[in-house]
């Protein structure tokens, strides 16, 4: 669990040594890390928060910062400088002719290729069926709790036709995980809370989406966007 760091401001690199002890995933694994958490002026330590088998990483307090990743992310390597990535991944399904409206759920796939956790490079998700979601919050001097929500409109649309977003559900998983950080769910119009982040925690999971296929929509290509928001008051 030892750790040392070179201090710095924007763009400076830190060197961390991290030990994580998640039972199902990493057994007392020690890893040397290079972190370039921008705008931070204090230690950035990742410690295991061994609650059941949940994979929650505790980081030491530091300059106020948050990070959210859905699908492709902005990390440079693992633990390196977090950043932005403009790519919006697509999760899709083409319903077979014989199955339209049959009620047989259709598994959706994505164009995400993210399999490795930015925490440690662990092969956590299984694309294209799974989409990585992860976030961390460091409230700085405060003790604020960050909240992760997802918002969708009422419908996916194809011209004037529509499919309710409630036809799409997700299941959380992750290789080696037994206790999940975010709940399974079904989209509803508006915002839904997925998780809260106590100060200095990092949570991650893999999402598998499915289409319920219980309606008979007009033929077409229906699209809609789900927006995930991590907010720190």
């Amino acid at each position, binding site marked *: 669990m030892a750790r040392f760091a070179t201090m710095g401001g924007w763009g400076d690199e830190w060197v961390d040594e991290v030990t994580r002890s998640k039972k199902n995933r990493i057994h007392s694994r020690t890893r040397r890390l290079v972190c370039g958490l921008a705008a931070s002026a204090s230690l950035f330590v990742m410690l295991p928060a061994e609650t059941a088998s949940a994979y929650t990483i505790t980081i030491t307090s530091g*300059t106020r910062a948050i990070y959210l990743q859905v699908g492709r992310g902005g990390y440079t390597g693992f633990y390196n400088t977090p950043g932005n*990535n403009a790519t919006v991944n697509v999760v*899709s399904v083409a319903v*077979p002719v014989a199955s339209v409206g049959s009620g047989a759920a259709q598994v959706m796939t994505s164009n995400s290729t993210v399999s490795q956790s930015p925490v440690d490079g662990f092969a956590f998700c299984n694309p294209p069926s799974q989409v990585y979601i992860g976030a961390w919050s460091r409230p700085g001097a405060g003790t604020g709790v960050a909240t992760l929500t997802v918002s969708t409109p009422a419908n996916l649309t194809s011209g004037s036709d529509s499919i309710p977003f409630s036809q799409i559900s997700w299941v959380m998983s992750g290789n080696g995980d037994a206790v999940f950080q975010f709940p399974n769910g079904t989209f509803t119009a508006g915002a839904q809370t997925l998780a809260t982040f106590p100060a200095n925690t990092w949570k991650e999971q893999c999402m598998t989406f499915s289409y319920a296929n219980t309606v008979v*929509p007009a033929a077409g290509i229906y699209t809609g966007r789900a927006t*995930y928001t991590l907010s720190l008051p």
Partner: protein
Amino acid sequence: MTLALCFSASAEAGSRFEAGASAPVFSRASIDLTIVIPEFLRLGIVGSFGKIPNETSRTSASETSRAGALGVVGNGGTIVIATSFVASEPSQPLAVDTEIATVAYAVAMP
């Protein structure tokens, strides 16, 4: 004078990193969902027959007629059903406004 820093992340992103603000911070990331629905048309017999007419759907000695329905489901727009119950008569198109329709039919022995 107070300088307020507001970090309003773009929604057009897969990941967002925000740092350094004393005010509330928001980080947004999105996924796009797409469902492709193909055109299809199904025709099935429903009603009193309940199945494709066969030996068991014959009228009994006391019956002179049977009625049933054709269930039609499609999603490519207005369904047009061409009916031709009697081979000697030409079929006639029947326009149906909805994408799921039931068309009644009957046969009788006068």
